[in-house]
């Protein structure tokens, strides 16, 4: 049986700054860390959480839209996460803005591990008209 997509179609005008999403929990495994380190070609890379895109995961679980392009991203390092620990992510809509006729959404998220250690904070500005990339930069 096909899964029903019950996500809400994004209404950018109606989206409220400050909307906080349900917390997201996951187990960080050594395999995740190793795969991430191979991908970034850095055996000491300490924040695999960057690749997990957990800051926008709950947004994407709630809303459907035309996709997005990452326009800007800020990352704050507090403590490298440890394999085998469960991480809890709290994410919210931190801002939205219109620039040159294009819509942007800013999400912010904080990750904490099961021992209460603060791991990182990520702030992501997403352009909500991803086809602009192809228009501007072509094939």
């Amino acid at each position, binding site marked *: 049986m096909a899964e029903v997509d019950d996500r809400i179609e994004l209404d950018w005008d109606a989206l409220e700054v400050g909307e906080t999403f349900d917390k997201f929990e996951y187990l960080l495994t050594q395999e*995740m*860390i190793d*795969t*991430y380190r*191979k*991908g*970034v*070609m*850095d055996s*000491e*890379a*300490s*924040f*695999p959480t*960057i*690749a*997990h*895109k*957990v800051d926008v995961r709950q947004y994407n679980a709630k809303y459907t839209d*035309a*996709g997005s*392009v*990452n*326009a*800007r*991203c*800020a*990352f*704050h*390092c*507090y*403590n*490298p996460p440890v394999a085998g620990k469960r991480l809890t992510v709290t994410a919210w809509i931190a801002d939205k803005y219109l620039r040159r006729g294009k819509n942007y959404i800013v999400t912010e998220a904080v990750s904490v591990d099961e021992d209460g250690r603060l791991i990182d904070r990520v*702030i992501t500005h997403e352009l909500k008209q*991803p*086809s602009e*990339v*192809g*228009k501007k*930069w*072509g*094939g």
Partner: protein
Amino acid sequence: MGRVIRNYEEGDEITPLVKELTQDAINLFEGSAGNTGPSQFTDEHAAKEVLGTEGTVASGRMSLTFAIETLRRYFGPDVFNHTGVVDLRFLRPIRPGDTITFTGKVTGMTKEANGSRIVVAIEVNNQRGDTTGVGQGSAIVPNAYLPSED
């Protein structure tokens, strides 16, 4: 790594970091959280549909990761992994086959309660000389890692 005491000066250039992007590297990055479905990063058809590009692109988060590596190598992991910040704007897509170089220069230092915040301007360029990203990063270097003011 032991504690390294060093001085920081405005205008100091940091050691550049060079990365060669491959589709395999992008796939590993995207798959590291268990996401194996097609996306604009891993699948040409999805890239065409979502972005309107002829091929895949690398996530901006890969550039962010490399900028973090650049500054971690500069400040040392014991400092950067606990106080580091990188804020990067993505100006052009990076594609498989691109070679990107991260450079940086110290632009400011401010006293904080627990040390000095050293600010670094970051620029990312591809093999054609195009700037693909700009931003800044910083870390708070504890006083114990700085030369004595006496």
